[in-house]
């Protein structure tokens, strides 16, 4: 009998003495209640385990049992339309077994093992299969087809196979015979260690934007499919709102939403909203293509640390099927804090602000799991990561924000003063940047024309100029500015209020197509252009503002429905008419 018993307990950290039976990162069961834990430190005298559940009531001398495998995620149909905790325990099932409060040591299989799936095989006896090949499919939800992959490290010739029909997860789908004659039984699910990236053929450079329908993002700071973006912002700046909007509207096939150390009520909101929201492309509820991972701030801290990896592993699994996946991680700061907390309990030497020295490398490992890739099966799939960052004291110089900046190429800085003025999304246009802008230019030029790029540039220039002018205005007021500069302020205001600001609760404004975005820019800039001509003739700017055209342009985001883009022409016409009248009046 192995003498592996609990020696010491300090919060979620449990130690075992004089044992050689555990390997690094092995998953273990701790105590009589079989709490789930993971080995994080091995020495000849002391082995350290972090527990994913509360250790209250645990006693020294209780048994610790190794599982012999790393912390893994179970991958198979049934992941979608589900909600898991940080270590892939299905919360709906947990509710059935332990009620509204999560009990300790609850063990439920991650996926429903009884459910029968309608399997259609894509291969036959005699076919040679490699790792990552698709051997069967089944409709996982009404809109997503689950593609069963040959597990990594397995290949060979199909020697026996089931017929199309209904099977459950643990049934044997087919048997492969490798070249050396060994036979591999392949089931309808597989396991994968969450901290190891799933392999791909090669990573590709992404040239296609992830379209979000959010104007400030699509137009000014776009993210590529397979890109990584950070949303930093203090509390109340609208991180979660922005994440929700992106999750609802971005054009990825599958959304994985990781609520990492965030509010419980927020998760219940996501649950309710996503179930009620109809996906515009398929007409089905959003939940059909969504996975939620909810490890709220009061759930065990070690599981919070794992939740990010669980999320990204599920994402990789669907990427390998050839889907475009978007991972929303809200918030990575809470994950970093979990690292800090555990590192503190291990009495490791802290680096900046108490965070462990390996924080940058862990962040890098995580964000590098994003990308567009050619999968082992030869398909193209991508993972885009959008990570929220919650800087302490709203100070962007803190370690998590700074290190995240190094590993993401898109930075959407949320601004508290914009949020105070209820300008949402509160993405600050001077502090934010997107390195993907260059990469994506050919796509925009091909799909929307060079004009789109020109408008974007012009708009950015106006905002930049406004920024400069505001310094003067703050000192001496806007009244003393010459008319051409007043026009810049007026146009900038129209851009800020009429274009950048977007109402997530307005039916027409919540999601806006790229075509409408372009038309909106066109009208605003056309008005600017025409007004400039008038001002250059010495006619006071007030003559233009009195026409009410600026107010009208600001409201076009509400007034023009997404499916009636021809209405923009009447705006152009109105601008022409009204401004001509002014000119006519003076000539």
């Amino acid at each position: 009998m192995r003498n592996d018993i609990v020696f010491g307990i300090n919060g979620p950290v449990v130690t075992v003495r004089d044992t050689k039976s555990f390997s690094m990162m092995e998953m273990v069961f701790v105590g009589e209640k079989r709490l789930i834990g993971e080995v994080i430190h091995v020495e000849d005298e002391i082995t350290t385990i972090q527990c994913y559940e509360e250790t209250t009531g645990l006693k020294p001398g209780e048994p610790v049992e190794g599982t012999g495998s790393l912390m893994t995620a179970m991958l198979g149909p049934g992941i979608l339309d589900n909600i898991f905790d940080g270590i892939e325990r299905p919360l709906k099932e947990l509710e059935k077994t332990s009620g509204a409060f999560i009990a300790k040591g609850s063990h439920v299989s991650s996926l429903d093992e009884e459910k029968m799936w309608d399997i259609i095989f894509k291969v036959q006896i005699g076919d040679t299969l490699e790792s990552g090949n698709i051997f069967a499919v089944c409709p996982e939800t009404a809109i997503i087809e689950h593609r069963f992959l040959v597990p990594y490290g397995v290949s060979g010739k199909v020697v026996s196979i089931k017929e199309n029909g209904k099977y459950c997860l643990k049934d044997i789908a087919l048997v492969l015979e490798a070249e050396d004659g060994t036979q591999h039984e392949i089931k309808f699910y597989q396991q994968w260690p969450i901290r190891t990236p799933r392999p791909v053929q090669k990573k590709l450079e992404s040239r296609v934007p992830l379209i979000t329908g959010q104007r400030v993002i699509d137009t000014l700071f776009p993210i590529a499919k397979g890109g990584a973006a950070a949303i930093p912002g203090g509390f109340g700046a609208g991180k979660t709102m922005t994440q929700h909007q992106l999750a609802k509207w971005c054009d990825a096939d599958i959304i994985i939403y990781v609520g990492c150390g965030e509010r419980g009520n927020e998760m219940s909101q996501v649950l309710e909203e996503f179930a009620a929201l109809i996906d515009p492309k398929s007409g089905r509820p959003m939940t059909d293509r969504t996975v939620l991972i909810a490890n709220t701030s009061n759930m065990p801290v070690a599981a919070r640390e794992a939740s990010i990896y669980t999320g990204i592993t599920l994402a990789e699994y669907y990427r390998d099927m050839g889907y475009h996946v978007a991972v929303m991680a809200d918030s990575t700061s809470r994950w970093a804090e979990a690292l800090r907390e555990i590192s503190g309990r291990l009495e490791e030497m802290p680096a900046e602000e108490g965070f462990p020295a390996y924080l940058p490398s862990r962040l890098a490992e995580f964000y590098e799991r994003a990308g567009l890739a050619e999968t082992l099966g030869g398909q193209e799939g991508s993972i885009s990561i959008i990570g929220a960052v919650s800087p302490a004291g709203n100070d962007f110089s803190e370690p998590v924000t700074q290190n995240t900046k190094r590993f993401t190429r898109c930075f959407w800085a949320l601004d508290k003063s914009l949020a105070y003025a209820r300008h949402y999304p509160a993405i600050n246009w001077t502090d934010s940047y997107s390195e993907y802008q260059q990469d994506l230019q050919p796509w925009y030029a091909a799909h929307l024309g060079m004009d789109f790029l020109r408008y974007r540039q012009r708009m950015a220039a106006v905002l930049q100029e406004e920024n400069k002018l505001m310094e003067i205005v703050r000192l001496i007021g806007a009244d003393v500015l010459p008319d051409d500069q007043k026009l810049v302020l007026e146009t900038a205001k129209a851009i800020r209020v009429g274009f950048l600001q977007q109402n997530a609760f307005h039916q027409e404004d919540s999601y806006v197509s790229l075509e409408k975005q372009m038309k909106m820019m066109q009208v605003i800039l056309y008005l600017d252009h025409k007004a400039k001509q008038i001002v250059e003739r010495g006619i006071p700017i007030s003559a233009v503002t009195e026409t009410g055209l600026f107010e009208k342009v600001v409201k076009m985001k509400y007034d023009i429905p997404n499916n009636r883009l021809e209405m923009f022409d009447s705006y152009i016409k109105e601008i022409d008419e009204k401004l001509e009248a002014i000119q006519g009046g003076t000539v």
Partner: protein
Amino acid sequence: MIIKYVGLKEIRGSLIVLDHVEDVSFEEVVTIELDNGTTRQGRVAQIEGDRVTIQVFEGTRGMALDNTKIRLAGHPMELPLAPEILGRVFNGSGKPIDGLGDIFPEKRMDINGSSINPVSRLYPQNYINTGISSIDTLMTLIRGQKLPIFTGSGMKHNELAVQIARQAKIADVDGEDDFCIVFAAMGVKQDVAEYFRRSFDESGVLSHVVMFLNLANDPIIERTLTPRCALTAAEYLAFELGKHVLVIMTDMTSYCEALREFSSSKGEIPGRKGYPGYLYSDLASIYERAGMIHGKKGSVTQLPILSMPNDDVTHPVPDLTGYITEGQIQLDRDLDNAGVYPPIDVFASLSRLMKDGIGEGFTREDHSAVSSQLFASCSKVSEARSLASVIGEEELSPADKRYIEFGKVFENSFIKQGFYESRTIEQSLDLGWELLGYLPRAELDRVDDEILDKYYEPAKKRLEARLEAQKSKEQENEEEYEELEDEI
């Protein structure tokens, strides 16, 4: 079999260390007997083989290595509960201190609670009418929400909390019995605790209040238990007895300082400003105990009060709190100095759950329109004010002057209200529209025309009529005054 351990190995701050202990479980409660017959309570904080570190709630004063006997209780810290706890007063670790004797428990619950399964949570959507215009209109409190009051020393947070507790009405609850208050005082002065008790008494709700008092001179370890005891009682009342519970906790900063003191005495690695690295998780384990559960009638709403040291909102305590709670009510020193009560800083304040708990079916259809317009207009007020502070109010453009005027009225008639004044949501919303009446229609860019026609226009007429009446009254007064002067 109950084993007593005699003697200690080490005493360090509020921690004691014991050797050769058998069959001890993590976070188990222990009783410590001293030579002089007094007993103290403690909890197992760390186990290393047969060596156990225990935190003593009442402090280690007077303890020596050889004058103590220690008994293990065999279970974690539990709170005895029964419906009779309503109207009672307890100390910070849940012992009755009102001289009415022990609770005859129907149930004992672990004070650490368990986390609510996110799937079982009911998304809070029903608003609580606090009767305070600025809160109801701009940062609506929702049942099951946690909405802290960020304040500073010397501001009127206690009054505000009392007023909210007194006036809070729940939209659809019939019968008074369903509503109760759990009050937890952590490190506050005796007279503050007394103020709350008296105020509850005066408004006749004392029989629906459970109080947990850990005063400024009470031991700090006990302070780390106080909010947990209070929330355990609240959960019992809400989820076992089906009541709607409002939990007022003051002052969370004292709680965090107690935690810091305890953490440093354990020799843990400090994070920001010396607070332990797990402060976020620890605060979350308190705040996240607010909410509602599918299939259960009650709710736990939290109204923690926390003072920001030096009015600094980036201090770790308000900062981490803001990341966990669903918004905040922030008080403003300038408004307070100007005599505006309640001195609520509407820009810095926010209710995250508000958006789904207002509008038709909850409050009124125009609620979101009026609140977002008020916010937008107020932000223009601050622009105009900062400009005025440079070039002087006289030099402002007419439009900016209008905003200055609007800002004044907003502070003096919307934010400001009496301590005993309770406004219905309709009154508050109508007042909001009347204020917007000071601005021309073209300036209201956040509102649909339909809503403007329905609410803005009549409110503007009301306002004009009122101003007119005021004017004529002033004129009358003036005439009378002149006549009086003439007579003299």
